[in-house]
Structures are given as structure tokens and as C-alpha cells.
């Protein structure tokens, strides 16, 4: 009787899969709003461009300079300048987006191998590791890009402050958001690989891989949308 109950409480994988798919779509929905809020922030600040400060600022360029060096410049009679900053490299941003899209495509390909036949499981391990490495590359490149965001020293009331333009601020926020998403993807990619290697994912158990792919495709799509926004609407 007890055993009967125990099995009757056990649900069919299809039922669980249906539920998890709905769950992942809802999480993606929440993430769409988060990304939307960041795009809203970007477009809002660009549109209002308060006091012409979208990509311009009065200060001293600070990248590569320490606080002492900047202080030295000021002590030597140097003063803050009105700087109009150049947007971050569009081609670099598109390369980043391309890496993300490619990683999604690789993972999707791995999923199709996995679903195709018994042997696909082994291929999937290798392919998802490659996809994961692509994401790691994306993270590294993102950090390189984040370091390109121009930073300024501004001296006010005897104290010097770091400051970013609103454009730079938005690029930082979007970049950090991208890195967080990519870290999740890397976790999922390498996790999928280990799971396939130990047999927790297989030809007959690939539902979770599809869930990962849904999220991955969404992240790739959002990267393309964001890259489009920040490379086309970035002039002052």
C-alpha cells in the first residue's frame, strides 16, 4: 500500500517538464522586465541629456591615472576640461554579441545532438563545454570592455571624486548585468556537461537542457538588442 502510494505520488517526466518550462518562461519574463528597465534607463538619460551631459563632462580623464597623478596635474596648475567622450567601440560590442550568439547556437546544436541519438550524450558533453568556454570568453571580453568606460576626476570643494558620464554609467550597468547573466550561463553550461558525463542527462532525459537553452537564447537575444541600442543611439 505504501509503495503503491509512493509510486502514485511520483509524477511523469512530461508533467514535470511542462511545469518547469512554464517556470523558466516566467523567470525569463522577469528578466525581460529587468533588462527593459535598464534599456529604459539608457534611453531616458540619453533623451533628457540633462545639461548636455550625456557624453560630455567637465573633469580630468582618469583612466590609467592614480589619484596622486591627477592631484599632481592639478597641483601643477592643470585644470578640469570640458571633455566630450567618444562612444565605446561599436565593432568590439558587436564582436561580444557575436560571441554570445555563437555560444547559444553551439549549445542549441549540442541539444539537438543529445536528442538525436544515444551517442549524442558524449558529443553533448564536449559541445556544452565549448559553449561554456565561449561564455567565459564573453565574460573576459566584457571585462575588457568595462575597463574601457572612461572615468573622470572631478574636483569640488577641495575633494576629488570619481565620476562617469551618464553614457558611461549606463554602459557600466549594462556590462555588469551582461556579466552576471553570463556567469549564470557558464554555471548552467558546465553543470549540463557534468550532468551529461555522469548520466543525469541523456538521450531520454534532455528536458533540462531545453530549459537551459531557452534561457540562453533569451540572453543572446537580449545581448543583440542591447548592442543594437547602445551602438546606434550613442551620439550626444
Amino acid at each position, binding site marked *: 500500500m505504501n509503495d503503491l502510494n509512493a509510486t502514485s505520488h511520483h509524477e511523469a517526466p512530461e508533467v514535470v517538464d511542462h511545469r518547469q518550462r512554464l517556470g523558466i518562461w516566467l523567470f525569463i519574463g522577469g528578466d525581460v522586465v529587468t533588462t527593459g*528597465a535598464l534599456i*529604459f534607463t539608457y534611453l531616458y538619460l540619453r533623451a533628457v541629456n*540633462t545639461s548636455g551631459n*550625456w557624453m560630455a563632462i567637465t573633469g580630468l580623464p582618469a583612466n590609467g591615472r592614480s589619484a596622486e597623478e591627477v592631484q599632481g596635474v592639478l597641483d601643477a596648475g592643470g585644470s578640469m576640461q570640458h571633455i566630450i567622450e567618444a562612444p565605446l567601440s561599436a565593432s568590439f560590442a558587436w564582436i561580444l554579441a557575436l560571441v554570445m550568439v555563437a555560444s547559444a547556437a553551439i549549445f542549441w546544436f549540442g541539444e539537438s545532438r543529445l536528442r538525436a541519438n544515444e551517442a549524442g550524450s558524449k558529443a553533448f558533453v564536449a559541445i556544452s563545454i565549448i559553449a561554456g568556454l565561449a561564455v567565459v570568453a564573453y565574460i573576459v571580453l566584457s571585462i575588457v570592455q568595462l575597463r574601457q568606460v572612461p572615468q573622470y576626476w572631478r574636483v569640488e570643494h577641495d575633494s576629488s571624486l570619481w565620476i562617469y*558620464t551618464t553614457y558611461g554609467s549606463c554602459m557600466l550597468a549594462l556590462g555588469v548585468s551582461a556579466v552576471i547573466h553570463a556567469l549564470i550561463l557558464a554555471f548552467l553550461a558546465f553543470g549540463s556537461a557534468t550532468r551529461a558525463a555522469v548520466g543525469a542527462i541523456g538521450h531520454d532525459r534532455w528536458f533540462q537542457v531545453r530549459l537551459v537553452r531557452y534561457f540562453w537564447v533569451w540572453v543572446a537575444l537580449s545581448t543583440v538588442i542591447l548592442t543594437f541600442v547602445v551602438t546606434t543611439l550613442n551620439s550626444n
Partner: protein
Amino acid sequence: MNSTLEQHHVVGGGFLRRLNFGTAAVSGLVFGFIAWALSHHFLDDSGQGFADQVTVLTGCGWVVGFLLGIGALTGPGKWFTGRDQNHADEMYLAGKDLGRKRYFQYTTDHKVVGVQYIIATMVLLGAGGILAMGIRTNLLTPGNHFVNQQVYNGFLGVHGMLMILGLIVAVAGPWANFVLPIQVGARDMAFPRLNALSLWTLIAAIPLLLGSLAIGAMDMGWVTQGPISDQSGIGFDLFAMSIITFTISTTVAGVNTICTVLTMRTKGMTMERLPIFAWASIFAAGLGLYAFPFFLVVMALNLADRMVGTSFFIASGGGTGWLQENLFWLMGHPEVYVILLPAVGAILEIASVFSRKPLFSYRTVVGGMAGLCGLSALVWAHHMFTTGWAPTLGGPFMLTTELISIPTGVIFLVLLGTIWRGNIWMKMPMIWVFGFIVNFIVGGITGIYLSDIPVDNQMHGTMFVVAHFHYVFVGSVLFGAIGALFYWFPKVSGRFIDEKMGRISFWLVFIGTHVTFISMFVSGLRGMSRRYSSYALIFEHTNFVTTIGAYMIMAGMLVLLGAVITSWRSGVPSGPNPWGGKSLEWMVPTPVPLENFEVLPVITSDPYTYGEAKS
């Protein structure tokens, strides 16, 4: 399935057996301390925003350590290494044969999580209530310096946020967890481990919020308006960390609620046969999924401004406070309905059971709730009529705001239609329902005044607004939440909450609410701004009355707390279905067994068949 695995691993739980609330707290403190020490060591302590960076990283350390220490990260770890939990693990996690211990652990059983949410709600509302008493004591007489202005401003912001968080979870937390899965005929929530995760991330967020008071209070009320948020003490960093943690908790909980109702219904439980509380819960959860990401983003951007020198909300760098206000109210108005809808759902359930009548016009009220959700996403700028942002949009936002009175009216129609010529059974839950109806009318109508721009130009930022939304939050939502507590408490504990103490607490809170907030309306009408730590002599009498009323509410809540505690231990036994309810939670035994149903029921009608032939 996996029978070999189960055999050599009969005792489930593994590492989780060693973890509980105590290890979580210790681990949280240790990780917080490590993060604090490391950030002191590695960060540039002459750099700007150093204190903020340290505080935020310490907060992160606490959250991660706490979740590690409770075992929340064991699941992802096991997933990553491909060692999935087996049946014995799952049974251990669900709290099988663990007795009281399971209430202090990462337990996945939805009923345990529901009880944990009751306690968390009480902590949040209790702490918020104590701060409210601090605020009101400070305002007892003009120029009374019960606390200094810095502390007072901290009280304002943390009181507001504690109450908002407390009310978001007040109905949805306990009852969408304890009752909802049983109502739809499920053995548990859709994702039991995520359910525990949402609870314990909420618990991790609470000390951050309270801690923010201790380390340098913030200056800007719960709306954390920029750019004053940039001046505030480091308490704000913990405050924002707490919100970010909380948004993760609600997102997880919202996904879980929606999936439970949409995919876990038992045979015959069509969407049209759902108890109305289930509808209210999924609407609220869906709206929360839309609203809370804005909350996360606005807090994250605020922290970025403080920590690394970005200029989102800082005018001198090109940013603008209006952006902060937009993002905040994009979250802030839907959030009102995230709070309100579950309470309305509970109220409608109670009204039907205690009038012994079917719910009046089921489809209309479902449509009304859907209308509330849709409209609430389109009204945010009515909080900004006087901020000077986009004056030309005033007309459209006035339109959408006033349209909300139509679906709100529908809720009243359905409530009145349900009690119409019923056999009204005035037990405690129903008493709070009548309190809800009386108060919600006041909260609703005063909202209509404020939607009108010329009136808002006078009333915005005054005590009138404060009284208005307290009529909604205290008078309506809190009354609904307490009604729900009296209604479902017998299912949780097998006992009634003491009727006599219940009536005393009702009258104290009910009269206290009107004394407090009617006098507050008068202060506002006569011209008192909100968030004042001190005021002119002309506001002396009304403020004195408000403070007395607030003490009455607190007294009533303390009586209620006493009633809940004593009744939990030694109340009158209730049996499984003391109210003669027809929804599924009343069909299962009390205490509800693990996995709720021996055999899943088959449903043939909605639970409102009062006075109808049995089918």
C-alpha cells in the same frame, strides 16, 4: 526507479541534516565578517564610496553565507555535479518525521513554509509597528524630541519598507503557501525547493533592513528618492541590499505560485472552478513578476551611484532624480495591487463561507482583478504629478488612475452581492471582513480625490496622502490579512484563535484605525506636510489624537499576538472543517498530512455551492 540508489542511501538529507537556522545565522555572520575583512584589505580605503563598497560587500557576504548555512545552495551544487536528490532526500527535505525541527530548517513542505511565513510576517509587521510607535511618539506634541532627527528619518524609511515587505507577504506568504496547493488539489507547490528558497532569502533580507537603522540611518523615506539617496548614511546600502534580496525572494515565490495554480490542479479543477483566492494569488504573483525587477534595478543603480561614482540620479553628472522616481513608481504602483489582491481574495472566500452563499458573479470579479492588474501598470506617474516631470502627461495619467475606480467598484459589488441576504455568521473572520469593507471605502474614495490633479497639487506630500494609503494598507490589507489568519488558523494549528481576545483586538484596531487616520486626514487638509519630525502649533490637537489612535492599534495588535500565541498552544480544538467551508483545504484532515491527499480528489464544481443541490 532508482531503487538501488535508494537502498544504499536510505537516510536522506546528507549534509543538509547538519544545517538549520542557527548554522545559517552563524555562517551568515562569518561570511559577512570575511567579506568585510577582505574588502577592507583589498579596496582602496581612500577611494570614494569606500564605506559603501564595504557595506554592500558585507551585506552580500551575509546573504550568501546565510543561504549556504541553511542549505539553499546545496541543491544547485548537487545539480551541477549531477548527483540529484533521491526520494529519501526529498522526504527528508519535506520534513518527514522531523517534528518541530523542520520549522527551523530548509524544509520544502509547503505547509511548513506557510507557517514560517506567518512568523516572518509577524516579525516584519511587529518591527514596523514598533518604529511606527516611535514616529508617533515623536509627533505626540510639537517639538517633542523623543528621538533625534537623524534617527527619526531612519525610522520613517525603515518603517515604510518593513510594512511594505510585511504586507506583500502578509497574505501571499502564509496562505498562498499553506492553503493554495491544497485548494487546487496539489501535493505541494510546483517547485518545493524554490519555495524554501523564497522563504529563506526573505529571512536573510530582514536583518539587513533592521541593521540599516543601526549603522547610519537613511534620510529619504521608503521611496529612497535620488539624489538625496546619495547623501545618506551607509544604512542605505544595507537597506538597498535588503530590497535586492527581497526582489529575488518575491520573484521566486511568484513563479512558484503561478506554476502551482496553472499546472498542479487536480482532475476536474478547471480555471472556472478555482477558489477566488487562487485567482487573486496568481494575479498578484504575475503583477509582482512585472513590478519587482524595477525595484531591483532602481536599488542597484542607486548603489552604483554611491559606490563607484556613476551619475544615474546625480544632476551634476548629467543624471536626474526623475529617472529614479519613474523607475521607483513603475514598481511602486503595481506593488500596491500585489499587496491588495491576495487580501481581497481571502476576504471574498471568507465572505462566501460566512454568508453561506455562492460568490456573487465569479467571472465579473476575475475580470475586475485582471483589470486592476492591467491598469495598475499604467498609472505610475500619478505619484509624480507635482514633481514637475512631463506636465503634459498629467491628463492621460489622470485618466488611467480614475479608470481604476471601475474594477475597484467591481470588488465592492461582488462583496455586497455575496453577503446580500445571506445568513451572516459573525465569527471572527467575518468581523474583519466587515471592517475591511468599511475602511476600504474610505481608502478608495480619498484616492479619487488625489487622482485629480488640481487637488493633488494641494494634497500631494501631505498627511492627507499618508492617511489615504494607510486606510488602504492598514484599514484594508491588514484587516484582510488578520481575517485570513482567523479563517485559516484552525487548519494550521487545529485550534481556534481565542474569540474573546479576538473581539477585543478587533475593536481596538478598528476604532484605533479611524481615530488615527481621520485625525491624520485633518492634519493633511489643514496643511501639514508628511515626513515632518516636528510641526507648527496649529497641528497640535490632530497629531495628539493620531498618536493616541496609533497606541490603540498597537494595543490591539499586542492582544492579537497574545491570542495567537496562547491559542496555538491551548486554544479550543476546531476539527478539520470548523467553518463548513467547501474548498479543498477543508476536506483534508487537520493536521494536514505530508503530501496533503491520500488520493487526489476529482472536482465537479466550484467551492461555492451553498444552497444548491449536491451534484
